């Protein structure tokens, strides 16, 4: 009896890895429209030098996506004029410093092509310098946490909505952002000392970044494609990948968790796909970067690189790509124990394209 049990156990152990490979497997013989193209495969790929970001609750997805697009292009072309494009600086430079797209207080919600256009015009402060400035406010909170904190403080203590009750503000901060009361008090003290307390976040950033020497951003403009049917969206994605470039995609994020989710009404053509009228309630408008295409189990998939952290592995994804603990890139990571960080997840085009509002590619 025991011997039989042992044999069964041994058989399971031996066949498990093979079975796992059978469940999700790339198809090598694919039609041209879904031939494998993965920008992460090359060990020298710029993607390996760009971190996986977590934008937290900030509405800066567009800036995170655009910054990664810029850095990919720069690194691919050997541009060493500065280190990395900081998304917080990028959004501020686009929507506050630049009079063309001016927003008065919040940087939430924006447009990737505008970020690229603005940075090309105004240049970019190095990430090192941005970090040096932001760390003066808090040495421990992340960039997006600082920005969210400033947003809440301004909402409660600045402008027309003046409120002196710090406890209410602190409660709201605790509810929305993960920074401790101790961190909040220290941030508040720094802001008061610098006379920044209750200023709009955009104003605070202006004061922080005023002496920063901008470096040139030498990338082509991002061209936006938001008209046409799903195939038109796919064509733009494929064109970018054929040029070994990523694409920035505006989409309804509901399908990340639920593959049956449809965030767009499908009114195009000829309507603007990402217009408010074309989005269903609860679309969850978001911006991401697409870095690959792969035929998995006979269906074409795109690799989405998100800004929701290194362990983003949603229910609606067929599989996720990762960096293993040994530092190697792996297209399909089935064993969570080998994962150091996920670098993107594969989504079936049948789910992704009907939720795609627009594709932005380098000209």
């Amino acid at each position, binding site marked *: 009896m025991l011997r039989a049990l042992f044999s069964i156990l041994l058989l399971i152990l031996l066949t498990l890895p093979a079975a796992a490979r059978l469940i999700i497997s790339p198809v090598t013989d694919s039609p041209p429209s879904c031939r494998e193209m993965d920008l992460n495969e090359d060990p020298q790929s710029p993607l390996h030098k760009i971190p996986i970001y977590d934008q937290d*609750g900030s*509405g800066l997805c567009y800036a995170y996506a655009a910054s990664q697009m810029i850095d990919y292009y720069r690194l691919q072309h050997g541009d060493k004029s500065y280190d990395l494009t900081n998304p917080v600086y990028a959004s501020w430079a686009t929507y506050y410093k630049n009079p063309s797209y001016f927003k008065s207080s919040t940087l*939430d919600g924006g447009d990737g092509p505008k970020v690229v256009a603005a940075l090309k015009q105004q240049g970019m402060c190095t990430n090192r310098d941005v970090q040096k400035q932001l760390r003066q406010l808090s040495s421990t*909170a992340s960039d997006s946490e600082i920005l969210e904190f400033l947003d809440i403080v301004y909402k409660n203590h600045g402008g027309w909505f003046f409120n002196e009750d710090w406890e209410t503000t602190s409660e709201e901060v605790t509810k929305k952002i*993960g920074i401790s009361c101790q961190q909040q008090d220290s941030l508040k003290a720094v802001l008061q000392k610098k006379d920044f307390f209750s200023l709009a976040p955009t104003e605070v950033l202006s004061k922080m970044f005023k002496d920063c020497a901008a470096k040139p951003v030498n990338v082509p403009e991002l061209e936006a494609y938001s008209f046409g049917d799903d195939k038109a969206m796919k064509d733009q994605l494929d064109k970018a990948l054929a040029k070994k470039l990523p694409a920035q995609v505006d989409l309804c994020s509901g399908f990340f968790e639920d593959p049956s989710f449809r965030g767009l009404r499908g009114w195009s053509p000829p309507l603007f796909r990402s217009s408010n009228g074309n989005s269903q309630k609860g679309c*969850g408008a978001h911006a991401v970067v697409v870095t690959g295409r792969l035929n998995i189990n006979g269906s074409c998939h795109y690799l989405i690189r998100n800004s929701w*952290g*290194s362990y983003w*592995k949603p229910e609606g994804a067929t599989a996720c790509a990762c960096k293993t603990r040994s530092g190697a890139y792996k297209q399909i990571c089935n064993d969570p124990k080998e994962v150091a960080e996920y670098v993107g997840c594969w989504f079936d085009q049948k789910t992704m394209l009907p939720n795609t509002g627009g594709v932005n590619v380098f000209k």
Partner: protein
Amino acid sequence: MFLNKLFLIFLVSASASWAWACDELVWTVNGKGEGVCYDEKHEAMVSAKCLSASCEAVTFLEKARQLKLSSTRTGTVQNPGSPYCKFLKGTVVIATNERGSQTAFCKASDGSLVELSSLGRKPKAP
């Protein structure tokens, strides 16, 4: 007889390695390095200490999986684990690894961590 012994040795060593084998990944949270491990039982990254002793982060996971909280898709999109962390009175913290990559954890009052998005994820059926 020999096979029986072999089987017993195999079982003992396998369960011991399951309980203790943890190749820690270090994430910096609020300026402090924290070791996290993959907890196979709960299918989530948790503080390394949670694998050998009880901790609140694992309780969070167990509680979250009994809950069904709706994730708001209006306005700013958020990590699906965020509503669970807030409901359980945890704190969302952004951690950084040596490569500069970031990820969010839910921090419990005993200081233990659980990877945020895993709170919103239901484990696969056995």
